[in-house]
C-alpha cells in the first residue's frame, strides 16, 4: 500500500543527512584518555619535546591532589559532563581488590536508578542539540528522537555518561594513592553496552596503579650505612696535574718529519692498520674489522690506549714501509669476541713525525697556563684545578655508591605506569642528548621516537629504570622520615636560576613545574647530604 511504503521514509530519517545529530560530541568523549578500554588501549606517545621533563616523585606528589580534579580536567562531552560533587540518585557498590605491582582493582556495580538518571540526562542533551524539522529544540518526543539519533548511539552515550558520573565516586576510595594517568577501565565497552541493554544496570572493573609503598629490608638501615667508594687512580689530583702539564707542554711543540730513522718511542705516526685471523684453512680466514683503521694517528707515548705489545711490534718501522706480524689478543681484552684470537696484523707507516718541544722552563709558563709567570705557579694553578675536579668526581662517586646501596636496601613493588613514565623520560632525555650532538632529520627522529623503539628501550633498560625508581622513592621516603627541610630562600634562588636558564635558551616553561622540579632536586641533595653525614664512607683507589 502506498501509504505504508511512503511512511517507511519517515522511519529512516535518522539516516537523513539533513539533520544535525551531535554525534561528534559522543565520539569525542569516547576518546577520553581516562576511559581507555582494555580492548583498545592506546600507547601514549613519547613525551617529546622534553623541556618539560618531570621527575616521577613529583608525579606521585601531584597525585596527592584528589583524583577527581584530573578527571575533571579531561575533555568531557556536554552530554555526559559530571563531577564528583554530582550526587548520584543511588549509591554505587565498589569492591577493592589488591593486585601485584601496586595495582588495585575496583569492581564497580552501578544500580539501575543511576542508569535511568544518566539516560534521562543524555536524552535531554540530545534533545537540545538535535535539529529535526517540524520540532523546536527541546520539544521532541522521546520516540521520535530515538528514531532520529538511533537507539544505539543513545545507549553508547548513556554508558559513557554512567562511567563519567560513577568513576569519580569509585575512585574516591583510592584518592591520594592513585597515580596520574594510570586509571584503566578493563571491561570492554561492548560488554558494558550488552549488560546495560539487557539489565539496565552496569558493572565494570577499573584497574588503577597506586603509589608504591617503600619497604626497608632493615628498618633504619640507611642511618648507618657502610659504603666503600672505589675511585679511579686517574682522578688523583697530583697525577692528573702532571699529565695535564705534559699534555700542554706537548701541544706547544711542533711536529717535524722523520726521514733518517725508524719509529721510536716519543714519535707520532700515521698508520694504516689491517688484521686478519690466522687459520690453516685459507677459506676460513676472516678480517677483523674492529682492528682495522686507516690514517690512524698513533702517539707512541700513549701506547696504553692501543693493544698491549702493539708498539713493540712496530718499533723501527720507517715511513712508507709495511710490517706484518702475528698477534694474539689478550684474554683481558675489552671486546669479548676477540679475546684469545690469533691475528695477522699488517701495518703501513704512512707518515712519521717527531716532536720538537720547547724547553720546559719559566719562559713558557704563560703559554702553559695564562696568567702564570713561573712553572711553580703553573703547577699550583693546575693542581688546584685538578683537586677541584678530583673532589667533584669523588662526590659523584660517593653519591652513586650511596644510591646503589639505597637501592639494595629497599623493596618496592613498582607499578607499570610508573615504570613506563620513568622509562619514557629517560629515553626522551637520551633523544635530546643525541639530537644536541647529531642533527637528526625528521625521519630518523620519527623512527627513534616510535612506540617500538621506546618499548625496546624500556625492555633493555628495565633494570636501570627500576633501580632509578627505587633510588628516587627511597630518597623521598628518607626525606619524609627524617623530617628534612630546605630553606625557602634556597628554593626561590634555584627557581630563579632555572627560569633564567629557560629564558636564555628562549624555551617555554611552566613556573609551577619548574618549582616542583627544583624542589625535587633540593630534596634529593638534602637527603644525600644527610646520608653522607651519617654514613661510614671509605675510599679505595683502584
Amino acid at each position, binding site marked *: 500500500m502506498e*501509504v505504508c511504503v511512503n*511512511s517507511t521514509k519517515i522511519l529512516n530519517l535518522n539516516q537523513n543527512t539533513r539533520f544535525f545529530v551531535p554525534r561528534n560530541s559522543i565520539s569525542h568523549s569516547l576518546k577520553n584518555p581516562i576511559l581507555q578500554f582494555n580492548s583498545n588501549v592506546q600507547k601514549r606517545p613519547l613525551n617529546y619535546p622534553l623541556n618539560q621533563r618531570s621527575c616521577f616523585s613529583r608525579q606521585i606528589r601531584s597525585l596527592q591532589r584528589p583524583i577527581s580534579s584530573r578527571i575533571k580536567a579531561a575533555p568531557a562531552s556536554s552530554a555526559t559532563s559530571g563531577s564528583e560533587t554530582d550526587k548520584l540518585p543511588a549509591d554505587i557498590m565498589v569492591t577493592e581488590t589488591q593486585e601485584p605491582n601496586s595495582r588495585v582493582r575496583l569492581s564497580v556495580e552501578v544500580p539501575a536508578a543511576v542508569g535511568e538518571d544518566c539516560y534521562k540526562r543524555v536524552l535531554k542533551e540530545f534533545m537540545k542539540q538535535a535539529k529535526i524539522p*517540524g520540532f*523546536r529544540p527541546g520539544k521532541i518526543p522521546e520516540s521520535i528522537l530515538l528514531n532520529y539519533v538511533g537507539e544505539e548511539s543513545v545507549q553508547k552515550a548513556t554508558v559513557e555518561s554512567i562511567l563519567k558520573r560513577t568513576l569519580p565516586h569509585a575512585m574516591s576510595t583510592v584518592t591520594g594513592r592513585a597515580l596520574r594517568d594510570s586509571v584503566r577501565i578493563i571491561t570492554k565497552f561492548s560488554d558494558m553496552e550488552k549488560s546495560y541493554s539487557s539489565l539496565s544496570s552496569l558493572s565494570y572493573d577499573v584497574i588503577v596503579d597506586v603509589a608504591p609503598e617503600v619497604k626497608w629490608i632493615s628498618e633504619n638501615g640507611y642511618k648507618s650505612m657502610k659504603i666503600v667508594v672505589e675511585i679511579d687512580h686517574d682522578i688523583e689530583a697530583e697525577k692528573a696535574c702532571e699529565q695535564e702539564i705534559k699534555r700542554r707542554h706537548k701541544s706547544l711543540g711542533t711536529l717535524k718529519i722523520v726521514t733518517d730513522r725508524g719509529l721510536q718511542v716519543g714519535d707520532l705516526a700515521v698508520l694504516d692498520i689491517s688484521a686478519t685471523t690466522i687459520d690453516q684453512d685459507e677459506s676460513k680466514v676472516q678480517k677483523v674489522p674492529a682492528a682495522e683503521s686507516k690514517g690512524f694517528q698513533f702517539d707512541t707515548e700513549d701506547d696504553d690506549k692501543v693493544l698491549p705489545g702493539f708498539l713493540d711490534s712496530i718499533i723501527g718501522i720507517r715511513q712508507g714501509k709495511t710490517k706484518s706480524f702475528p698477534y694474539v689478543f689478550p684474554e683481558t681484552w675489552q671486546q669479548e669476541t676477540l679475546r684469545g684470537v690469533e691475528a695477522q696484523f699488517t701495518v703501513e707507516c704512512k707518515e712519521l713525525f717527531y716532536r720538537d718541544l720547547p724547553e720546559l722552563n719559566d719562559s713558557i709558563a704563560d703559554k702553559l697556563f695564562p696568567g702564570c709567570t713561573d712553572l711553580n705557579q703553573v703547577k699550583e694553578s693546575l693542581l688546584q684545578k685538578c683537586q677541584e675536579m678530583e673532589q667533584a668526581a669523588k662526590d659523584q662517586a660517593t653519591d652513586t655508591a650511596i644510591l646503589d646501596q639505597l637501592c639494595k636496601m629497599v623493596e618496592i613493588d613498582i607499578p607499570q605506569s610508573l615504570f613506563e613514565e620513568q622509562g619514557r623520560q629517560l629515553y626522551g632525555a637520551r633523544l635530546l642528548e643525541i639530537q644536541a650532538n647529531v642533527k637528526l632529520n625528521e625521519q630518523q627522529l620519527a623512527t627513534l621516537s616510535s612506540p617500538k623503539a621506546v618499548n625496546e628501550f624500556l625492555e633493555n633498560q628495565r633494570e636501570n629504570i627500576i633501580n632509578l625508581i627505587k633510588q628516587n622513592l627511597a630518597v623521598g621516603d628518607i626525606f619524609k622520615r627524617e623530617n628534612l627541610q630546605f630553606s625557602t630562600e634556597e628554593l626561590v634562588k634555584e627557581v630563579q636560576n632555572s627560569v633564567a636558564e629557560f629564558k636564555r635558551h628562549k624555551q617555554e616553561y611552566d613556573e609551577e613545574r619548574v618549582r616542583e622540579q627544583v624542589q625535587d632536586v633540593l630534596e634529593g641533595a638534602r637527603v644525600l647530604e644527610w646520608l653522607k653525614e651519617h654514613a661510614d664512607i671509605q675510599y679505595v683507589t683502584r
Partner: protein
Amino acid sequence: MDGIKYVVVTEKSIRLLVKNQYTSNVESGSTKAEIKHWVELLFGVKVIAMNSHRLPEKGRRMRPIMGHTMHYRRMIITLQSGYSIPPLRTKRT
C-alpha cells in the same frame, strides 16, 4: 488512494493526534472529497472534517521570480470520536 503521499510527523501533528486529527501530505490535485473517501474505505473510519492548506513557500530567491507554490497540500483529517487509524509504522526495537 495514490493521492496520499505520506504521514507528517511534526510538533503540531503530534499535538493534533490527541484531538483525533491525522495530518498527511497529499498530491496537489487531490480533493478533500477524494481523500475522505479513500481514508474511510481503507481504514474503516468515519471522517467528520477535512482541512487542507498549502505550506507557505520559503523566501529564497533562486530565479528572477521569488518563491514558488508548494507542489503538495497538507490535509488534516478529523475522525469521529471512537475511531482511530493504527500507527502506520512499527516501533523499532
